[in-house]
């Protein structure tokens, strides 16, 4: 997801993937891909394709921030 330009728009069921058993991807309803605007809303963090456009001096940092598990890691240290 770090490099993707679009965000997956399906409803993903996350209760199933708890580390036991093989990894699973379960979605419900119709799946689609979505794309946002060129720039993030004021005050928001850049996401997906915005990472390529907005604030590219700190691109690596921004990319790491956009990942969920990296976020907790970055803010705790």
């Amino acid at each position, binding site marked *: 997801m770090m*490099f993707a330009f*679009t965000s997956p728009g399906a409803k993903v069921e996350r209760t199933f993937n708890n580390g036991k058993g093989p990894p*699973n991807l379960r979605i419900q309803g119709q799946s689609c891909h979505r*794309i*946002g605007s*060129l720039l993030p809303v004021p005050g928001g963090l850049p996401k997906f394709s915005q990472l390529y456009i907005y604030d590219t001096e700190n691109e690596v940092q921004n990319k790491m921030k956009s990942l969920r598990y990296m976020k907790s890691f970055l803010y705790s240290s």
Partner: protein
Amino acid sequence: MLNEFNVHAKSFRMVRDRYRNQPFDDLKLRLIADRTKDGRIYNVPNVLKVVALIVGDVDTASSRDIIMEKQSEKLQRINELHTSYLGFQYPLLFPYGEDGYRLTIREWFCFRLQTRHSEALTLVTSRQLFQQFIVDGYTMMESKRLSFIKYNQSKLRVDKYNNICQASGSSQSQGSQQGKRVVLPSSFIGSRRFMDQLYFDGMAFCSYMGFPYLFITFMCNPKWPKITRALKKLKLSSTDRPDIVSRVFKIKFELLIDLTKNHLLGRTIACN
């Protein structure tokens, strides 16, 4: 690497450069869905064929094109028939921003989900991403099929069916039954009519031939030596390659015909 080769990354970088030089312009990016030329044969798709950067007003575009606004909170939905649909979502699987399918979606996925000696194994060894890719591909295929059925209801003679329903149904009508109804034919796998047909076939069979002696359930074992042998070289587990597992299952399933042809469990009277 993406900056250097991926056409989509390049196109977004183009927006960045423009934005950096003139941050107050009203920029819009148009992601073009239809290609006039075949990008696969001689020419790699280049940036200008994939996107157009628009300053100011937008002219009327093809319905499948996506126009990205400069700044808004809305997310736009990408049509699954957009040629770069998968390229945008999986830049690491398609590092050059290759075009999507040109045949049907199913044919294109059949072509993609193969191991070839002349090709790097990026796609088939990417584990969870590969799973997501397959799920995505299947939903693309299914939504295409569903939309075909939805827009070809007149060919499928739904009107006649609806008239029969109206004639036989009671005069009381509920709100949930109002509106236009889309009828899935029995050829759509998993639909109600499909299940009904299987059931009626089975029942007709039993009433003609008598009760079955054997009821065979055939299941797949991911630890079959054929599967493990193929996966050992790649150092993957069976969950990482659902394509191999299902392919081996299909082969074995078709060998079940031996039961009827070679009379392994005695002479077969009938089978369904």
